[in-house]
């Protein structure tokens, strides 16, 4: 039952006000500038260009390329994160031996600053000084181009993303698993449902709401991937591993081409909103069914 009680305002307004206060100006500001040609350096007077920036971007192959790369990285890495994270969370929840240690150990990557992660990754992937090269050489694959060839570089970036963010999935799914009632598992155990059947018919459907949320958040955050790419490949070779945010970063913080960056941000917002809405719409029937 949802109820009506004036106190609901007391509950929601703090969050609403804070988010509104913080977000409204950036929104208004960037929406305004997205219709202007505006550079901070070299300082140039702002000029209204209408949809010029948008048209520019949409006809810029780099934009489409970057959007494609980002989508690839986001979907692949989030997919892997979810699969691995769910498996690990299940294992932890079923109390594998040493669960206490795993619990803390598995969380660690998430606690390291992304910049540091990328820097460390670069060291480990270093073709001459890194341990991975030595390891691969032992198998007869010396000096693999981990960061200098497009497909390898994308792979490396995805692996690093998975390393860093799977803990997020583990943590949230573990919390979700812990709120599931025990008694239904007892009922299923009596039916001699195999672990797989229990997973398929009970755990997964009951975990679906939180899974949806976790994957959604990870997707959004993955679309904003920047530090990892910036540090690991700098977007190279060429622009082949450049992501949307890195592109925005170059335009915004190196060239201070604010009008263009704002338009880019809005396209990005629209892009993700569409993806998000599609994602939620696709999942909706399942969520309803298992409610």
């Amino acid at each position, binding site marked *: 039952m949802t109820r009506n009680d004036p106190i609901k305002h007391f509950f929601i307004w703090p969050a609403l006000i804070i988010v509104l206060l913080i977000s409204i100006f950036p929104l208004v500001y960037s929406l305004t500038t997205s219709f202007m040609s505006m550079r901070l350096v070299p300082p140039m007077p702002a000029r209204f260009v209408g949809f010029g920036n948008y048209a520019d971007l949409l006809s810029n192959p780099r934009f489409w390329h970057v959007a494609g790369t980002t989508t690839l990285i986001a979907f692949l890495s989030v997919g892997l994160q979810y699969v691995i994270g769910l498996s690990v969370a299940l294992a932890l929840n079923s109390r594998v031996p040493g669960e206490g240690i795993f619990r803390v150990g598995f969380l660690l990557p998430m606690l390291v600053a992304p910049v540091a992660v990328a820097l460390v990754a670069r060291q480990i992937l270093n073709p001459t000084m890194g341990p991975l090269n030595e390891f691969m050489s032992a198998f007869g694959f010396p000096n693999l181009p981990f960061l200098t060839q497009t497909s390898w570089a994308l792979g490396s970036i995805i692996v690093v993303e998975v390393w860093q963010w799977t803990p997020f999935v583990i943590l949230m799914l573990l919390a979700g698993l812990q709120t599931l009632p025990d008694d239904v598992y007892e009922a299923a155990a009596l039916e001699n449902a195999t672990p797989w059947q229990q997973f398929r018919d009970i755990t997964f459907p009951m975990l679906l709401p939180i899974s949806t949320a976790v994957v959604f958040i990870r997707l959004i955050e993955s679309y904003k991937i920047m530090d990892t790419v910036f540090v690991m490949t700098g977007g*190279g070779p060429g622009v082949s591993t450049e992501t949307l945010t890195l592109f925005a970063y170059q335009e915004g913080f190196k060239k201070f081409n604010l009008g263009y960056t704002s338009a880019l941000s809005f396209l990005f917002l629209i892009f993700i909103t569409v993806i998000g809405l599609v994602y939620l719409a696709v999942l909706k029937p399942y969520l309803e069914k298992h409610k």
Partner: protein
Amino acid sequence: DPDFTGVELTATTQTGPYIASALQIAAKGWEEKTCGKVKVVEFPWSELYPKIVTSLTSGEDAFDVIAFAPAWAPDFTDFLAEMPAEMRQGSAWEDIAPVYREQLMVWNGKVLSQTMDGDAHTYTYRIDLFENADNQKAFKEKYGYDLAPAKTWKQYLDIAEFFNQPANNLWGTAEAFRRGGQQFWFLFSHVAGYTSHPDNPGGMFFDPDTMDAQVNNPGWVRGLEEYIRASKLAPPNALNFSFGEVNAAFAGGQVAESIGWGDTGVIAADPKQSKVAGKVGSAPLPGVDEIYNYKTKMWDKFDQVVQTSFMAFGGWQAAVPSSSTKQEAAWNYIQYLTSPEVSAQAAITGGTGVNPYRLSHTTNLELWSKIFSDREAKEYLGAQKDAVTAKNIALDMRLPGYFSYTEVLEIELSKALAGEVTPQQALDTVAEQWNKLTDEFGRDKQLAAYRSSMGLPQK
């Protein structure tokens, strides 16, 4: 001495120890001397530019002293205070290498910043490999001339090719090839020799008369070809090298020669950081015997090898934003920081990142023998001195909208290095984009800025 009791300066630069520690050490001395206070705020190198730009343009009084890369100066000039006249005289002033004093610190005739670090590319090589008799013999046999520090870029590549022996864990050379990893300065070093015609000063990047991009002329193409060739003679995955890896590769004994800033020499000579300490030779950058003349569109031949020094990066600058309310104290602090004594000490203190920029720095051998062997010190200082005092000096590019220009360059460079486009195609694209950018920013304004950055009088 002036008394600045109660004054607290905020100075910002990149995260230490490089440069930041120089500021900090000087801060201590200055605080004792003047009773003021200096707070050094450090930001990551890649974030320093946006941080300074935003605080300058928003008009916030956040910093009193900024230490920054000279290439950014054009974007800052509107917001910087002029150096007080009394600092621009006397022996300490004259002691600053002219290239800094007369060119890099000056903007439209005004001195807006003070160099606090000297930077130029030089050449480093492995004495032990070069003076090994077997190597010398084999080299002579193969190339028909004696093995010695490269005098020309052709020799540079020959040597690299000769020493490129992956089987022995040895490669020819190391340069930065990574996007976002100082790559284009290495390209500029290759190009500078072929394009800096003594008759056409300041014509390396743009035609200083029309502001047309020169970046795709045959001199550039040749430079880029050689740069790409060098990447093939470098350790595997050198395409992901930034300058840090270059140093590491050299200090790790992986390469026979390399080019780059003075750090290579200092790091490689330090037994704590290097496997090749005591075997580090230094020399000026290789030269050329023909230079492209963009005016005549001809290659001009020279009898002698022309040594062109490229002021890559150009050394850190210290300046005072005009929004600062403590300008007097700020300039006083900068003066102290860059005074011959304090700076000389900084130049030989490991980790300050300060390279010689005063004439006195390069003449005081005694100071340097602390970290170098005699021969190393002599060669190192000689190379440094030659670099800042060379007859034919190529200045680095400094333009408003700097990052817009370099981004285009970086992207095309990466493509060319990866073999996706030919050097000519890459540079043609760059030229086209540069011209577009120039038009967008205003050709006249850019032209004026370019001329002034190259030390040319305004038209």
